C-alpha cells in the first residue's frame, strides 16, 4: 500500500478526518470471541482433512508404484519389434526349491525357435557341468530333458506336471518347424508374427549367492520374475557361458522360442557395486513436550538403490522399505516459518519389496530379467539428523532432514546399509505438530 499522492497530500479536511477516525474504537460484545473460536476450529478441520487426505493419497500412490514395479509390466513397456519379452512367475517353496512358469510373448518367436534347440542344449550342459545339485533335461530332437525325482520332490512338482510341460515344449518346437522356413524367407513377417505361448519350463538352482542378497528364505515366498531380451539378429551359440562359471548365477531362465538363455547373477557375484544413499519420504506427527523439544513418530518410506556391474552384466537392486520412527526433536533455531533442529531416535522398518533388474549383454542381444521378491524380517536402526522445517500451514511443516543412521545387522538384502552399517541418508516429508 502506498500512501496516496494523487493530490500529493491529503487535503486538510480529509487529514483531520483520518486523525480522528484512524484509531477510533467501538465496543465489541463478548459473543464475538466465542464465535471466532468456533470458526477457527471449523476452518482448521477443513484444512487438516484435505492434508490428511493428500497424505493418505500420497501413501497409496507410493504403495501402488512399489507394487506396480514389482509386477511384469516393465519388460512389456520396453518391448518393441526386436524385443523378446519374457515374463515369469515363480513360487519359491523353500530355500532349495523353485518352480518357474514362463509366459512367453515374442515377436521374433519363429526365427528364434531356430536356435532354440542348440541353446537349450548348451544351457543345460553348462548348467550340468557347473551345478551338480540339480539339472533339468529337456527333451527335444537332440536335447533330452529329464527331471530327477529328487529335484521334483524339492520343487514340489509332480512328474506328471513336468512331463506335461515337456510334452508341450516338444510339441511347440515341432509345430514351429515349418514356420521357421517361412521366417527365414520373410523378415517382415517375423516381426509381426505375434502370439502368446505359455509353457512350464525349467528350474533355477538355488545357490547361496542368490539366496543371501535377496533373502528369499521363507518357505512360501512369492517371487515374480520377468525377463526381456532384445536383439537385432539371430545369434549363434550364446556367449554368456563364456563368462567365468563362478560368476554365473544358478538359474538359467529360458523359454521355448527364446534363442538365448538368461543367466542371473547373484548380486554378490557382481564385480562392481555402487551404493546410492537412501532416499526417504516421511509423514510424521510430533507432540511438543516444551517450547524446544518434541517427540515424534509416523511413517517413513525409504528407497534403496544399488547398481551392480560385471563384464556383460549390469543390474540394479531396488529395495522399498516402510518404517516407523520414534524420535526426539530439539529446535536449535526458529523463526516465524522456518526452524532448524536436531533429531535423534530409532526406527524399525519392514521391507516392502526387493526388485532386482539385470541386463545381460550377449553380442547384439540384451536380455533383461526382473526378479521381485518380498523382504523378510525387520531392519532396526538408530539415527541422528540435522533438519530444517518450513511451516506451510498451521501446524504442518515441510521438512528436509539429512543425517546418519546406524543399521543393525538384521539379515536384510544388499544395500548401502548392509555395506556400511553407519550410513548417510536424506529424508523429506510432512510433519504435523500437536
Amino acid at each position: 500500500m502506498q500512501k496516496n499522492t494523487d493530490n500529493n497530500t491529503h487535503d486538510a479536511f480529509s487529514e483531520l478526518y483520518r486523525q480522528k477516525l484512524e484509531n477510533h474504537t467501538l465496543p465489541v460484545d463478548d459473543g464475538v470471541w466465542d464465535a471466532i473460536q468456533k470458526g477457527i476450529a471449523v476452518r482448521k478441520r477443513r484444512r487438516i482433512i484435505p492434508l490428511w487426505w493428500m497424505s493418505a493419497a500420497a501413501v497409496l500412490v507410493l504403495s501402488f508404484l512399489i507394487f506396480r514395479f514389482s509386477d511384469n509390466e516393465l519388460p512389456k513397456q520396453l518391448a518393441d519389434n526386436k524385443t523378446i519379452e519374457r515374463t515369469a512367475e515363480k513360487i519359491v517353496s523353500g530355500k532349495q526349491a523353485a518352480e518357474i512358469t514362463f509366459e512367453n510373448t515374442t515377436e521374433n518367436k519363429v526365427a528364434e525357435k531356430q536356435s532354440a534347440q542348440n541353446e537349450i542344449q548348451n544351457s543345460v550342459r553348462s548348467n550340468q557341468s557347473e551345478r551338480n545339485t540339480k539339472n533339468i533335461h529337456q527333451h527335444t530332437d537332440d536335447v533330452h530333458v529329464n527331471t530327477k525325482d529328487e529335484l521334483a520332490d524339492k520343487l514340489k512338482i509332480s512328474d506328471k506336471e513336468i512331463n506335461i510341460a515337456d510334452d508341450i515344449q516338444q510339441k511347440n518346437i515341432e509345430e514351429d518347424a515349418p514356420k521357421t522356413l517361412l521366417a527365414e524367407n520373410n523378415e517382415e513377417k517375423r516381426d509381426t508374427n505375434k502370439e502368446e505361448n505359455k509353457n512350464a519350463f525349467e528350474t533355477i538352482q538355488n545357490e547361496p549367492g542368490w539366496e543371501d542378497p535377496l533373502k528369499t528364505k521363507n518357505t512360501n515366498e512369492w517371487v515374480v520374475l520377468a525377463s526381456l531380451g532384445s536383439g537385432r539378429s539371430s545369434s549363434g551359440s550364446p556367449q554368456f557361458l563364456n563368462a567365468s562359471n563362478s560368476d554365473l548365477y544358478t538359474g538359467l531362465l529360458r523359454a521355448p522360442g527364446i534363442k538365448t538363455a538368461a543367466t542371473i547373477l547373484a548380486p554378490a557375484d557382481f564385480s562392481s557395486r555402487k551404493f546410492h544413499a537412501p532416499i526417504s519420504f516421511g509423514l510424521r506427527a510430533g507432540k511438543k513436550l516444551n517450547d524446544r523439544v518434541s517427540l515424534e513418530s509416523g511413517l517413513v518410506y525409504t528407497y534403496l538403490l544399488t547398481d551392480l556391474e560385471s563384464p556383460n552384466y549390469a543390474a540394479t537392486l531396488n529395495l522399498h522399505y516402510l518404517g516407523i520412527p520414534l524420535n526426539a526433536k530439539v529446535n536449535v533455531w526458529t523463526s516465524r516459518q522456518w526452524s532448524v533442529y536436531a533429531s535423534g531416535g530409532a526406527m524399525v522398518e519392514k521391507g516392502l519389496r526387493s526388485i532386482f533388474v539385470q541386463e545381460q549383454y550377449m553380442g547384439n542381444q540384451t536380455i533383461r530379467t526382473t526378479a521381485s521378491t518380498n523382504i523378510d524380517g525387520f531392519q532396526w536402526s538408530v539415527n541422528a539428523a540435522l533438519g530444517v522445517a518450513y511451516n506451510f500451514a498451521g501446524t504442518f511443516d515441510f521438512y528436509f532432514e539429512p543425517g546418519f543412521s546406524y543399521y543393525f545387522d538384521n539379515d536384510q538384502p544388499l544395500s548401502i546399509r548392509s555395506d556400511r552399517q553407519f550410513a548417510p541418508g536424506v529424508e523429506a516429508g510432512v510433519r504435523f505438530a500437536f
Partner: protein
Amino acid sequence: MGDKRITDEQELIAGCIEGKSWAQRAIYDRFAPAMMSVCVRYVTDRETARDLLQEGFIKLFTKIESYSGTGAFGGWVRRIFVTTALEYLRQNDALKQSADIDDVGYHIENDEISVLEKISADDLMACVSQLSDGYRTVFNLYAIEGYSHAEIAEMLGISEGTSRSQFMRARKILQKSVLSLHGNEYAKEYR
C-alpha cells in the same frame, strides 16, 4: 517500552502461529475494538460489522503464518479487515454504483476545518455512515486507510477517475454534514 511491546507482539504472533488460544485472545483484545470501528465505517450496520469482525479474526488467525514480519503488524491486521469488508460489499453489489463527476469547485474553507476539529469521532462516524456504500468505501480507502486512487481503482474494479470523483463527492457531502452537525451543536449551545 516500545521494544517490550514489539517483543510481546512477536511472542503473541508466534503463539498464534502455533494455535495457542491465549495468544489469539490477547491479539483479539488488542485489536478488536479498533477493527470493529473499521468494519462499522465500511458497512454501517452493527450486526453486519460484527459478522465482518468475526470473519476477519478467523482469517487473521488462520492465515497469520503468512505475515512476513516486515511491515507493521497493526497495518497487516487492518488490511485483513478492510479486505473482508470489501469482499462483503462486492458480494452484495454495493460497489457497483459509479458516478463520474467533474472534479471542480470543492474548496475547503478554514471554518470547516475548525468545525471539524470540534466534532467528536463518534459524530464523524455518523456522518460517514450517511454516505452511500460507494462513496463511503472510496472515502474510507483514500482518506482513512491511505490507499492511492490507482490502488482503489484496482481493488474496486473501477476507473481511477471514478475513484477520484467519488472521493470528491463524498468529501463534499461530509463537509455539508459536518457543517450541519456543527450548526445543530451551535444552536444547542445558544438555545
